């Protein structure tokens, strides 16, 4: 609570500083500088100059938005009009600021405003964490840019590392902020067992996230194209699926569509290793060390147009290779989709491997999606097409049973599947069920859904 007030003080201070120097009317939590008025004010011009230097972007033509969140705050910076370079600059700036905040460096706001901005010293003392996420183009208004989340640290400050390292390490060490948070909620922890002693133990010790053994990851799969039994894909996919040559089509509402061979598709991209929890809608879960390309790198390469609001993915359709497609179990080919901001989120991965090797056929070779905060069926396998679209894709499970599988499919222990509970899950290899975490523990994505009724948009 105190923290929220401090954040409000900081965010209010930014427009207030501008207002004082500029004498210009502001909306409570957003300001949009008008060049005609602003240029007459030398103090504001000086601020602009410093801002340009620190931020690399002109405040005359960009929009700031400040939101206070339950656990911190959010700063969104957007660029007017059609200016990809400006958007890129904004994003780079926010990313560097987020990194700086995470390192404990809160000097940039002071530089822009030529004075210590109220609140930054508190953030520094509290060792607040900055997290960056790109904000996709929104229309209307036709804006794009980035956002930075400022959150009070939920892990010991000694654990704070730059974002990428932070994500990976946190997953490997199993020191999940959300797991800790969940463990702190007695109601959730109490679900684990009726036994009093172990209930107490469960609420004290954070749940461990050890990677699931390679053997289990590669023999327990839902890949109905190769059969509906869990072990069918491991039995059938390796001998039936031809992953070379493999063609991926990128098309739809983008400036750089393309048709790539697999090697060509991954050429020039940066491969990252990410260990994520995978939570299946059937209430089991795994921890898988993936290797892959952040999806946003692929999206940025394709240069989506203003109207692109969704990304649609399609699996190979070839009943010769995929015997499951000979029966109408689902409407083939399998289709999945993400909203643009979900697709651009740094956690979203196009996986090309696991456990340091090429993706096994049964896990969706050669290219699959991994969206760790959503149920596993969103993470479509063996992708042959990535299409930018302005309408919500008709996703396979949603079409098959709209009352059971939503488009969003965010992991949510509070919204049960109509036929089974989602409150708990069994980690493969473990005996006892554990409580399921909101967004599968990836609470940093919560802001993507602020204001949405997650019971309705399940």
């Amino acid at each position, binding site marked *: 609570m105190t923290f929220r007030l401090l954040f409000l003080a900081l965010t209010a201070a930014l427009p207030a500083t501008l207002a004082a120097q500029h004498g210009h009317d502001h909306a409570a939590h957003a300001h949009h500088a008008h060049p005609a008025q602003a240029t007459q004010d030398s103090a504001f011009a000086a601020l602009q100059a410093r801002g340009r230097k620190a931020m690399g972007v002109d405040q005359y033509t960009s929009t700031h938005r400040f939101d206070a969140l339950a656990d911190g705050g959010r700063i969104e910076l957007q660029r007017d009009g059609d200016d990809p370079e400006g958007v890129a600059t904004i994003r780079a700036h926010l990313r560097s600021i987020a990194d700086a905040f995470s390192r404990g460096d809160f000097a940039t706001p002071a530089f822009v405003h030529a004075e210590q901005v109220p609140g930054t010293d508190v953030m520094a003392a509290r060792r607040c964490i900055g997290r960056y996420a790109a904000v996709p183009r929104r229309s209307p208004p036709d804006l794009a840019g980035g956002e930075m989340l400022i959150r009070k640290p939920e892990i010991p400050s000694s654990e704070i590392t730059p974002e990428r390292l932070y994500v990976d390490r946190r997953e490997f060490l199993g020191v999940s902020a959300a797991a800790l948070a969940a463990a702190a909620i007695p109601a959730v922890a109490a*679900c*684990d*067992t*009726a036994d009093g002693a172990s209930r107490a133990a469960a609420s004290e010790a954070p749940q461990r996230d050890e990677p699931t053994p390679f*053997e*289990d990851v590669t*023999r*327990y799969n839902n890949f*109905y194209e190769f059969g*509906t039994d*869990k*072990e069918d894909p491991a039995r059938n996919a390796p001998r039936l699926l031809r992953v070379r040559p493999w063609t991926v089509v990128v098309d739809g509402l983008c400036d750089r569509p393309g048709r790539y061979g697999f090697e060509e598709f991954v050429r020039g991209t940066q491969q990252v290793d990410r260990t994520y929890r995978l939570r299946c809608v*059937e209430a*089991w879960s795994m921890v898988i060390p993936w290797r892959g390309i952040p999806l946003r790198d692929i999206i940025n390469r394709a240069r989506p147009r203003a109207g692109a609001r969704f990304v649609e993915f399609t699996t190979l359709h070839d009943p010769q290779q995929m015997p499951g497609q000979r*029966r109408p*179990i*689902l409407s083939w080919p399998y289709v999945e989709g993400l909203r643009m901001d979900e697709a651009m989120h740094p956690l979203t991965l196009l996986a090309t491997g696991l456990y340091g090797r090429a993706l096994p056929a049964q896990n969706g070779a050669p290219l699959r999606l991994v969206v760790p905060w959503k149920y596993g069926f969103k993470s479509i396998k063996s992708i042959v097409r990535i299409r930018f679209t302005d309408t919500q894709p008709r996703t396979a499970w949603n079409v*098959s*049973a709209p009352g059971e599988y939503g488009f969003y499919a965010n992991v949510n222990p509070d919204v049960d599947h109509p*036929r*089974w*509970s989602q*409150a*708990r899950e*069994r980690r*493969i*290899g473990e*005996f*006892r*069920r554990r409580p399921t975490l909101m967004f599968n523990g990836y609470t940093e994505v919560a802001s993507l859904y602020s204001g949405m009724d997650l019971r309705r948009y399940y």
Partner: protein
Amino acid sequence: MAAPAAWELQAARWVRPAAWAGGLIPLALLVAGAFTGGLGADPIEYVTLRTGFATLLMLMCTLAVSPVRKLTGWNWLAPIRRTLGLCAFLYVCLHFATYLVDQGFAMEYIVEDVAERPYVTAGFTAFLLLIPLAVTSTRGWIRRLGKRWQKLHRLVYLAAGLGVLHFIWLVKSDLLEPLVFAAVFAVLMAFRVPGLPGGARKRPAKAPAATRRAAAES
């Protein structure tokens, strides 16, 4: 009724042990799997699926005994109806026990499941219905209940129907297996409809005694 042939007298001797042996094959496979790591990555789920499948299989075999007897006149099959029925009960008990383990014996979740999830409600009801049938399967109870025994044991139709419904309602999208069970169940029930070929007929005077004897023998 013609006197039983010599081979039928032979068959009558080994048919019950054979039914036990056959009925316990699914259990033997599970036990073998447990010792060889053959239960897969999620043993609890695997055992749940296998015991559920075995229950339905045994129920269908149980329901098939009487029609086969009627169609072939092989009355020496009669004793295996109870054997197979008890196998079905064994598997449903294992199935339910696995479910309890799966839920960590957490009553609040189990009660919620039974009350709110139709497929669990159907399966649980079928389980409850089978309990009195297993209890009254002994010779003593058959004697004590007399005519009411047969009436009571018609509950197996309801239990099997609910079991099939339970299977249909729980699968995600591939209905092939549950629908095969549904079709088999429908055919087996058709034999019980009076007037249909092979259906229940008006009993000839001798039949009740024969049936009772057959039941008593088992």
